[in-house]
C-alpha cells in the first residue's frame, strides 16, 4: 500500500493515525533485534521498542525529515535502551579499560589464521554468541552497522555522537570481537 516511510508519515500527519501501523510493521523486527541485543531480555526489549514507537508518534511534529525515519527511531530507541542499562547499573566497563583498546588483530598472524581455519557455520555461531558479551556501545555500533545497515553518518545521528567516535566504537568492537573469538579458539585448542 505504501512504498516508503515518507508516504506513511505524510498519511499519518494528514490525520490517518491508522497508517502508523504500517510504519511499526516495517521497523519492528530490526528495532527489536537492536533492543534485545542491547538489553539481553526479550520482555524488556518489547517494552522499550513499544515506548520508542509511541514516543516517535508523539513527537512526530519534531521530525523534520533531515534524517531517515528509521535513523530517528533508532536514536530514540538507543536512548531508551541506555536509560534502562544505566538504571540497572549493568553498564559494562569503560572501553578504555577493555582489552580491545589497542588491538589491531590483523597484525596478529595467529589470530588471522585461527579465524581463517574456522568453518563458516562455526564462526557464525561463535560471533552470534560473543556479540552479546561486548560492551554495549561497541555492540550497538556493530548492530547499527550490520543489522540496521546504517552509514557512519546515520550511526552518528542515532547514537548522538561525533562521526569519529562511532567509527572508533565500530573499529574497537570488531577488533575486540575477533580477539575474543581467537581467545576462545586458543582455549578450545588447549583443552583438546
Amino acid at each position, binding site marked *: 500500500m505504501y512504498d516508503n516511510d515518507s508516504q506513511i508519515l505524510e498519511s499519518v500527519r494528514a490525520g490517518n*493515525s*491508522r497508517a*502508523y*501501523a504500517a510504519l*511499526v*510493521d516495517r521497523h*519492528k*523486527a*530490526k528495532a*527489536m*533485534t537492536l533492543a*534485545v*541485543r542491547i538489553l539481553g531480555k*526479550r520482555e524488556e*526489549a*518489547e517494552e522499550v*521498542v*513499544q515506548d520508542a*514507537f*509511541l*514516543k516517535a*508518534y*508523539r*513527537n512526530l*511534529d519534531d521530525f523534520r525529515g533531515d534524517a531517515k525515519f528509521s535513523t530517528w527511531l533508532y536514536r530514540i530507541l538507543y536512548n531508551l535502551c541506555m536509560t534502562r542499562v544505566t538504571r540497572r547499573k549493568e553498564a559494562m566497563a569503560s572501553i578504555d579499560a577493555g582489552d580491545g583498546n589497542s588491538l*589491531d*588483530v*590483523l*597484525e596478529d*598472524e595467529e*589470530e*588471522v*589464521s585461527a*579465524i*581463517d581455519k*574456522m568453518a*563458516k557455520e562455526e*564462526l*557464525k555461531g*561463535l*560471533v*552470534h554468541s560473543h*556479540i552479546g558479551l561486548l560492551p554495549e556501545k561497541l555492540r550497538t555500533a*556493530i*548492530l547499527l552497522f*550490520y*543489522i540496521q545497515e546504517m552509514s*557512519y553518518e546515520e550511526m552518528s545521528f542515532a547514537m548522538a555522537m561525533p562521526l569519529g567516535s562511532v567509527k572508533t566504537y565500530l*573499529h574497537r568492537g*570488531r*577488533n575486540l*570481537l*575477533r580477539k575474543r*573469538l581467537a581467545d576462545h579458539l586458543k582455549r578450545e585448542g588447549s583443552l583438546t
Partner: protein
Amino acid sequence: MSAHISGERLQEYVDGVLPTDEQEQVTIHLRSCCLCKDSHEALVAVDQALRSLPVENVSPAFTRSVMEKLPLVRKAPVSFRILEKFASLFALFLVLAILATVFVLTGVVDLQQVNQGQTQLEEFLSGPMTTVGSGIAAFSNALAKYVPFAFGSGSIGITWTIVAVVISLALLDRIIVRRIIPKLR
C-alpha cells in the same frame, strides 16, 4: 604499494568506504601479498558472520498493542507543554512562596519589615543606575537584615536553607514533570 596494509584500512576496504582509487590500490595489493590476503579473508569471514545475525521475529500482536496505545500519547496541549518546559521555574516560585509564608507565619519576618523592604527595593530600582556590584551588595544586605535566620553572617541556617530549597526543587520538579503532567495528558 609495497608495505602491508593496516588493519584499519583493510577494514575500510571491506566496508567499501575507501575512495575508488584507494579501493583499486588495495585490490591490486591483495593479489600479490599473501599475508594481507589472509587478513582480508579473516575480516570478510567475520563480516559475513556479523551480517548474518538473526533478526528477531515480532508478532502482529505487537503492532496491535502499539496502535491501541496511540490515542493515549497524543501530544499534550500547548499550555501543558509550556508548563512542562518551565516546570523548574514554577517549582522555584512555589518553594519561595512557601518559604516566605512560613517565615511570615512563624514571625521570623513580620509584614512591617516586608513592607519596609519593598519600599527600599522600589527606591533602589527607581534611583540612578548603580553598578552590578553595589546592586548585589544591596541585595545581600537586605537579605541579611530581613532574613537573618537564613542569611545573617555566620549563621549556620543558610546551609540548611539552601539544602532545603535544592531538595524541594528537585522533588517538585520530579513530581510535576514525571507524575502530574503525564496524568493530565
